């Protein structure tokens, strides 16, 4: 499983776009990049997954450059309810367990 590095914490304001970058220099050819979101007092939940270029859903966008050694989770026009911890994970569908890092603690200010 490739190791990931992401900022420990970030602050932003309501209405701003927030970008959280994750480094994964040792990503393997078959690996996907997956992001989970964890609200206080809840378990993590899947938000987005991608392999290359750009993926967008109703929650976020995921940008992956050609070398795939990093990825950026983009949250458009954040609100206070986006305050959470965001985990970047790298692995393929044969992996039998996910190893979570400490994630990025995002704090949205009014």
């Amino acid at each position: 499983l490739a190791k990931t590095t992401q900022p420990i914490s970030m602050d932003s304001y309501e209405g701003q776009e927030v970008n959280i970058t994750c480094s994964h220099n040792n990503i393997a050819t078959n690996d996907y990049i997956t992001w989970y979101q964890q609200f206080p007092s809840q378990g993590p939940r899947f938000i987005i997954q991608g392999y290359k270029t750009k993926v967008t859903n109703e929650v976020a966008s995921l940008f992956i450059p050609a070398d795939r050694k990093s990825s950026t989770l983009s949250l458009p026009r954040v609100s206070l309810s986006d305050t959470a911890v965001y985990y970047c994970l790298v692995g393929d569908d044969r992996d039998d367990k996910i190893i979570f890092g400490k994630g990025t603690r995002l704090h949205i200010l009014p």
Partner: protein
Amino acid sequence: GAGVSQSPSNKVTEKGKDVELRCDPISGHTALYWYRQSLGQGLEFLIYFQGNSAPDKSGLPSDRFSAERTGGSVSTLTIQRTQQEDSAVYLCASSSVGQGAYGYTFGSGTRLTVV
């Protein structure tokens, strides 16, 4: 059920007592995982069950921790002779085979406090 259910949601126990934490996975999910999350920390992998295979116990922190999964469904995590450092949120997740990081569904966890 529709999601992963964990019980109890909160548990306060005295140091030295044994505790049992329960996880009901999503019906049909063959894989079940236990994680531990201490205050302000990331998730620490504890144990993984997949079908009838021997569980991956590589994350269990000591022999006071054990888990079983009966009938390929409900799982119980048991902590014997609890210590204060066992205080944490214990999270259970389930998934289908072959989904990798895409298909994990977590419960809301059991908050364990050892006093």
